[in-house]
């Protein structure tokens, strides 16, 4: 144990470095405006106040931003997880003409920077008036190659062909097999992918920034940004909003962290 002491020391220091800014923000959200920057910084707020939160809720359409983000993220997650499960299964359990090529095309879309489709997507969805902001906010997250890859890897590793074959002998249809056998077995991976997708959409900033001009349709990051860039830099409100915004994300993560962390690394490890 004695030899381990330095190791734990380093790990704790790192832990502090990783979490200190977040804890500082958390404690700041409960401090009166004047105390946030007090020196020396104090972790436990004294006096402790909920005033920042109250003013956030009374003076800002905070719940609307929150709802907008959450609903959009849930919709994007539902669609993309289903699409990924379907395609992941297709690639994992069938051999068909063009499989290699199609897989390569799918996989290579991982290397396409979002900035490349930013301008044309904006032109297509806004300039032509085709998409409502709701639809447009969801669009960039519906077909992630990363998710398909994750599903494909998981299916290959954990769903034996014999199970599918048995179902086929019993006369089950292909989609029936997918629905009644594959999807239930895929549950842990679906959970992991769902968390990841939710976070991607919920945390997205650049696309909503470009897309949404009407303040009644702001997502949470956009709304918080307006508090931050306004003339009087409302740090107190920003911190309170930041704390609330991070709650669903961290809660989801803590709840499903095992699946998520293992799901994320499935593909990378096997190489």
């Amino acid at each position, binding site marked *: 144990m004695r030899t381990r002491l330095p190791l734990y020391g380093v790990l704790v220091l*790192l*832990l502090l470095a*990783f*979490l200190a800014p*977040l804890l*500082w923000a958390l404690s700041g959200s409960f401090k009166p405006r004047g105390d*946030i920057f007090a*020196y*020396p910084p104090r972790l436990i707020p004294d006096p402790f106040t909920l005033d920042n939160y109250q003013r956030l809720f009374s003076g800002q359409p905070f719940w609307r931003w929150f709802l907008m983000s959450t609903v959009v993220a849930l919709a994007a997650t539902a669609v993309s997880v289903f699409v990924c499960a*379907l*395609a992941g*299964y297709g*690639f*994992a359990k069938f051999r*068909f003409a063009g*499989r290699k090529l199609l897989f*390569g095309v799918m*996989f*290579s879309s*991982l*290397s*396409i*920077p979002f*900035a*490349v489709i930013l*301008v044309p997507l904006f032109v297509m969805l806004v*300039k032509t008036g085709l998409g409502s902001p709701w639809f447009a906010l969801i669009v960039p997250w*519906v*077909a992630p190659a990363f998710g398909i890859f994750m599903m494909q*890897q998981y299916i*290959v*590793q954990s769903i034996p*062909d*014999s199970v*599918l*074959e048995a179902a*086929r002998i019993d006369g089950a249809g*292909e*989609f029936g097999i997918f629905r009644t056998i594959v999807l239930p077995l895929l549950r842990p991976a679906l959970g992991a992918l769902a968390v990841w997708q939710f*976070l991607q959409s*919920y*945390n997205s*900033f*650049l696309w909503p920034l*470009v897309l949404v001009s009407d303040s009644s349709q702001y997502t949470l*990051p956009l709304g*918080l*940004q307006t508090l931050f860039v306004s003339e009087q830099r409302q740090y107190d409100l920003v911190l309170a909003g930041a704390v609330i915004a*991070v709650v669903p*994300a*961290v809660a989801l*993560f803590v709840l499903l*962290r*095992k699946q998520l*962390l293992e799901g994320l*690394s499935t*593909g*990378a*490890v096997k*190489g």
Partner: protein
Amino acid sequence: MTTAIAGPPRSTGDRADEADTARRPKSSWAPYLFISPFYLLYILFMLVPIVVSLWLSLTEWVGLGTPHWVGLRNYRLLATDISFHRALGNTAVFVLVAVCVVVPLALLIAQALNTRGLRVRDLWRTAYFVPVVVSPILVALIFGLVFDRQFGLANSVLRALFGTGGVDWLGDPSLAKASIALVMLWRWTGYLTVFFLAGLQNVPRELYEAAALDGAGRLRTFSTVTLPALKPVTAFVVVTSFIGAAQIFEEPYLLTGGGPAESTLSVTMFIYRAAFQRQQFGYAAAAAVVLFVLVFGLSRLVNRLLGIGRAS
């Protein structure tokens, strides 16, 4: 990536039969139906935009009226645009930091977390991952406060430790770049650690035992056992962080606005600025095409060299 499904038929009797029948489902159109939703969306929201981008890059367009065909003029302008050169250079610095600092640091941390008998490994792993979960705008907001010149946490800590403060983190060109890199480091190290840790836990223990029997020291074991076993993970991590860092936007946009003196302007910010602040849609599209060629080309090259992303 894997050989389990698409490899050649196995020679052993019953396993081969089993695999063979499973590979021949009754309907040959089924796999295409399964993958078609993805390709439909892919074509609509990926392929079509890329083609549109290519076409827009050959036009001059303010976002209203009809785009005006200008041929390669946007590209010629980019070639002499100092701002674009700065954006490319800054982005290259961020990519280098990601690949040469963040990746090795993540490997080191993973190595530490992989120590045998380490307690509450899951807790460490979870805690280090938390910054990834926090939205980039919150990260930027919080670090905006951390780096505040007068009152920020960074200067407070400096003052407490060394009695000096007042460092202008975001106001000095090279410090601003370093600050952005620091935020990147904070945000992504834990994420990459997860991959390395998973890779390390997959290295067969016998390999380490064999190395120990041969009397190999720590460094030797690391270079002859650990590193080769980690090759696929490393490849994945390097490509992922390359692509991620090449697209950096939120941190410079929110923390520094690309400044001071464009010292933190990234390519994505350049594209955003051209299109949505200056209404130069054609010019922005041309910059996007350049970014696409660079990122796609380089990551494909690395993929090919390291052999990731194959279906079989």
